[in-house]
């Protein structure tokens, strides 16, 4: 009699654990950023990468692209965001090999391709910094909804550039999947990027 009760108690516990595991592991991923629904093909661009070559977005198929628009003399938002991108890179571990971390300047007047590349690499050697002429950059800014405006200051740098500060996530198929606004938790970005990197 006791054995029979034990059998049902242990069996019930195992079954409950299996049901709980099934619920947890089959739960659909819920994105934390602002999702583009349905995903949109990310506008293509080709910009100078500082080593004399050109970085073309459409050639990055198979890699996930984490894109940010900023400038090298930015005092606050850009270094903060690039530091967060560095943290994402670290937290992804070996998965980061399948991701491209890209900075595009919003200040082509001062940010040459070499300077932008050097600045991006100062956060992580794998980071890519891109620049070009204002004529080349204008359509890219427009396509990605980048707001930018020069603001004169009394500082030695002369002017600052007010700009939007989104992080864009472009999946392995070249689709613009979501954006994160400035200040979004790094944990959220890591979760979504990890999910997209594992997505086939």
């Amino acid at each position, binding site marked *: 009699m006791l054995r029979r009760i034990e059998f049902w108690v242990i069996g019930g516990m195992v079954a409950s654990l299996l049901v709980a595991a099934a619920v947890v592991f089959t739960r659909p991923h*819920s*994105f*934390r*950023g*602002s*999702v*583009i*629904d*349905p995903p*949109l093909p990310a*506008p293509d661009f080709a910009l100078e990468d500082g080593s004399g070559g050109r970085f073309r977005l459409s050639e990055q198929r198979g890699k996930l692209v984490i894109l940010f628009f900023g400038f090298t003399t930015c005092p606050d938002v850009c270094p903060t965001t690039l530091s967060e991108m560095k943290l994402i890179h670290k937290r992804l571990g070996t998965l980061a090999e399948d991701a491209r971390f890209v900075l595009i300047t919003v200040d082509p007047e001062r940010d040459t391709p070499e300077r932008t590349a050097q600045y991006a690499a100062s956060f992580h050697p794998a980071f890519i910094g891109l620049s070009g002429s204002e004529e080349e950059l204008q359509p890219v800014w*427009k*396509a*990605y*909804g980048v*707001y930018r405006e020069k603001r004169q200051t009394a500082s030695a740098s002369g002017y600052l550039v007010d700009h*939007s500060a*989104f992080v864009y996530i472009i999946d392995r198929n070249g689709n*613009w999947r979501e*954006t*994160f*606004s400035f200040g*979004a938790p790094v944990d959220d970005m890591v979760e979504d990027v990890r999910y997209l990197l594992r997505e086939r």
Partner: protein
Amino acid sequence: MFARSMYLDFFIRTLLGLAVGLVFAFLISEGSFWLLPNKQSASRDPHEVTLVIPYGTSEQVKAGAYNRSLPENMTFVQGDVLIVKNEDVAAHQLGPVLVPAHASGVLELSQASEYNYTCSFQPTNRMGISVLPRVDPNSRVQALLAVGLPTGMMLAIYSYMIPPEKLKFLKGLRKAS
């Protein structure tokens, strides 16, 4: 016989303590809920809220002629999903939602807070969003238990210090048993 009545005493005091604690918690918790100014919206289920940005909005905003009446402050409940449909030819931004032209941006409002966002399709360029914490039946029961159980146990422990002779109704219960 003595041990049995002691156990009964202990049981009744604990039970009464918990009952009083839960009633007290119910009054406090439900009373606070009914005093909430937005109790009806805070207790509703999350739902989707869709905003449509019509074609030509960016041009109208640039020309200062955009006069669509969107409230400057909108109230949501935690868990609501904000969908911004952009039918315009330019990308638009509503706080953390950046929507390319001819696309939709979707954001789940998972954190209750007051937000003041940059908004590219409001004449003032600003939009306030309030996300109310959602008070569902589950959280009301949790609040009841979180306050009621410890209060009840505390009352029960204090009641153990009252000598049984002073609690007349216990005598009656003991006799009945």
